């Protein structure tokens, strides 16, 4: 693989990985905001509505970052992966373009109503707008997962000359690969949102500020977080594992660091893959579990990497192995964290005063983002050496007309730009979170004078 292609891979991985920090937050929070807004309409307690407005502010900042870092994604297929785009654009771009037509227009319109239209349209329309924003963000996720699923498991195509033509639209849209991946991705996003909500609530309770809201956030965060964490493992994680075992056995072997085909293969808890010697260093293995998880039989044979010629194996086995183990390891911890927190909540609401648990919730905030990122690394590195599994090698998908110097130039540019954006995002979100939900409430005009915040949702500019 030439340097230009390697740099294009790094640039795509970096820009899409960075971008995905924000959609997972917005997809998760959009769902939680709908819950808060619904609770308000049912219980008629103003606290829930103020909470919804507060999270809408955090949502809005994340949304802006998601939009601006998302723009390059739509274009990078063409800029850096021209041969892939010309080869498969007839199919892959259908779902990408549908995202624009069906999700982005919807989101941008209803987000305006949601952020600016509460007073004008009243509570029912405002609730409806929050639902539409949620559906918009999740529809966006569905089209992207559909596009990725097709690259993992191409269907509905015919090969015409040196290009692919779409032969069955519905097969592409209902690719069996989509459902498990979509469920897994969305519950992952909800976990991120729930941990952020619970974590900020825990901070409020620990610092004894905005305590009322701290309770709401922690309660909603841990309940939703527990449910989503369980779905993440079963059924969605399990379904994904089965699918990979069936269609991409080399990927599964690399996940698990299984260098040799084994009967009754064990699952690796710790260890460092050594591709030079073809073994795991310092292994800690639970026997037979991998066979059971994959085939539901303790003595089943699991194919190892040695069954595939080196050219058919993923090309970064070490990184793939660690990505997978970080994802699964963190995901496994999320269940007991949220489980214990839920138990403490059920036990006469002791959660609100149990400081060690609140500390854990607060410090756990960033880990779902890491797990989700590691998850994407897992699925994408595991697809290598293919850009379209079984059809087009990654090395033949890049833009042949780009010199390494030009790609490095833009990679450095993106890195610099994203560093600045990241700093801005952290500073603004932390400032917002520290101000708390009540800031700006009941003093709308004053806030408007000295630096108002999107999402304050108080009236509009509509006149005449």
């Amino acid at each position: 693989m030439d340097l230009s292609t390697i740099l294009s891979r790094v640039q795509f991985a970096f820009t899409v990985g960075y971008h995905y920090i924000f959609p997972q937050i917005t997809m998760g929070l959009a769902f939680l905001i709908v819950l808060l807004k619904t609770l308000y309409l049912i219980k008629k307690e103003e606290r829930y509505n103020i909470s919804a407005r507060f999270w809408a502010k955090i949502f809005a900042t994340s949304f802006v970052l998601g939009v601006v870092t998302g723009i390059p994604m739509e274009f990078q297929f063409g800029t850096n992966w021209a041969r892939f785009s010309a080869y498969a654009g007839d199919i892959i771009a259908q779902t990408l373009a549908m995202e624009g037509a069906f999700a982005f227009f919807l989101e941008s319109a209803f987000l305006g109503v949601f952020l600016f239209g509460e007073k004008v349209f009243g509570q029912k329309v405002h609730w409806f707008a929050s639902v539409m924003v949620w559906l918009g963000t999740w529809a966006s996720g569905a089209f992207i997962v559909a596009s990725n699923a097709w690259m993992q498991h191409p269907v509905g195509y015919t090969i015409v000359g040196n290009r692919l033509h779409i032969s069955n639209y519905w097969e592409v849209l209902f690719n069996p690969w989509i459902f498990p991946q979509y469920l897994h991705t969305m519950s992952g996003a909800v976990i991120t949102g729930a941990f952020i909500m619970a974590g900020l609530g825990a901070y409020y309770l620990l610092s004894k500020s905005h305590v009322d809201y701290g309770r709401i956030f922690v309660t909603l965060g841990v309940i939703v977080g527990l449910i989503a964490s369980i779905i993440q493992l079963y059924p969605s994680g399990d379904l994904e594992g089965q699918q990979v075992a069936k269609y991409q056995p080399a990927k599964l072997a690399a996940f698990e660091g299984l260098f040799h085909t084994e009967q009754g293969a064990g699952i690796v808890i710790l260890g460092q893959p050594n591709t030079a010697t073809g073994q795991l260093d310092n292994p800690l293995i639970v026997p037979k579990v991998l066979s059971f998880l994959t085939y539901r039989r303790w003595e089943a044979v699991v194919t190892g990497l040695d069954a595939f010629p080196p050219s058919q194996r993923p090309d970064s086995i070490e990184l793939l192995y660690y990505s997978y183990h970080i994802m699964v390891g963190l995901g496994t911890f999320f269940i007991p964290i949220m489980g214990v927190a839920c138990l403490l909540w059920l036990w006469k609401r002791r959660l609100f005063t149990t400081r060690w648990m609140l500390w854990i919730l607060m410090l756990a905030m960033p880990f779902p983002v890491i797990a989700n990122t590691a998850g994407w690394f897992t699925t994408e590195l595991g697809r290598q050496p293919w850009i379209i599994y079984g059809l087009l090698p990654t090395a033949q998908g890049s833009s042949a007309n780009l010199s390494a110097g030009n790609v490095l130039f833009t990679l450095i540019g993106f890195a610099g730009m994203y560093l600045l954006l990241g700093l801005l995002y952290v500073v603004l979100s932390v400032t917002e979170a520290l101000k708390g939900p009540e800031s700006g409430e009941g003093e709308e005009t004053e806030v408007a004078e000295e630096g108002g915040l999107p999402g304050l949702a108080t009236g509009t500019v509509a006149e005449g």
Partner: protein
Amino acid sequence: MATLWFILVAFMLTMYVLLDGFDLGAGIIHLIAARSDQERRLILRAIGPVWDGNEVWIIAAGGTLFFTFPVLYASSFSGFYLPLCIVLWLLMWRGVSIELRSRVPSPVWASFWDGMFFLGSTLLAIFYGAALANVIRGVPLDAHGVFFEPLWTDFNPFSKTPGILDWYTILIGLMAASTLTMHGSAYIARKTDGTLNARARRILRISWPVTIVLTIVSTIATFAVQPQIYASFNARPWGAIFPLIAFVGLLGIGHFAFRNRDLAAFFSSCAFIAGMLASSAFGLYPDVLPAVDPAHSLTIYNASGSPYGLTVGLIWWMIGIVLAVIYFVFTYRLFWGKVTAKGEYSGY
């Protein structure tokens, strides 16, 4: 079918220029039109609820171009690699400058983002013009439909190895900046009153004759640089309707600008821009990306997707675009009228 998609993609790009064009224009003029912090906020309020939706048109157009003309998408995006990445950075930075400006109550912070908003908007307008000019002038495509253009070479549009920037593309870039200045000032005049409105109207009246001059010069240059355009109008004279629309629009802008009819001036500006873009598209057809060597040009025939893909695409595209238009009518109705300092909500 490919012809239909040529028209539809051109339509989407035109929608993008008309819509995002006015918020780019607002960015170009805001340092001059708006002097105080409050006035600058009014400008941001005038575009705040809609700029993001406007930019969706370029994303949607990019996606649509990708599946309808995959070969064109692949070839042009990789060939225009450097300017495209620069445009992406500018789009990001400018979007952030709109949203973050009023987040920190500090005059230094606000001034910084005001400057960025101006710079991003102006450079984008120039780059968009230059991009269109590159497509009109043609690029050094080889027999495989591949090219790579450096940012500049010898600044000569007749060169065998042209760069992104030459005197012709820079000329069109300046024309685009002047046009969007006009477009944005008409929009801001419409959305504001008082001194802000008066300044926007003055900018509109100044940018109008400048645009006329640049339009005349650009048109002459275009016929010189790309003979295909003249040939197209000669072969299909009915296409004269497009430059006619542009001409009427351009007259309308001046007519209404000097009678203080801001909305009518804005719609005239829309007609002018749409007419100019349609004329360019009509002139290029059936080429989608002319080559320096005409034998290597990408056309609607050799760059389009499969017939089946184009057909199913058309079905969902029509549903999607009807929905999009409904959202847009709804949003613009909601935020119709002038923005005022007193408005309960600011956010900007």
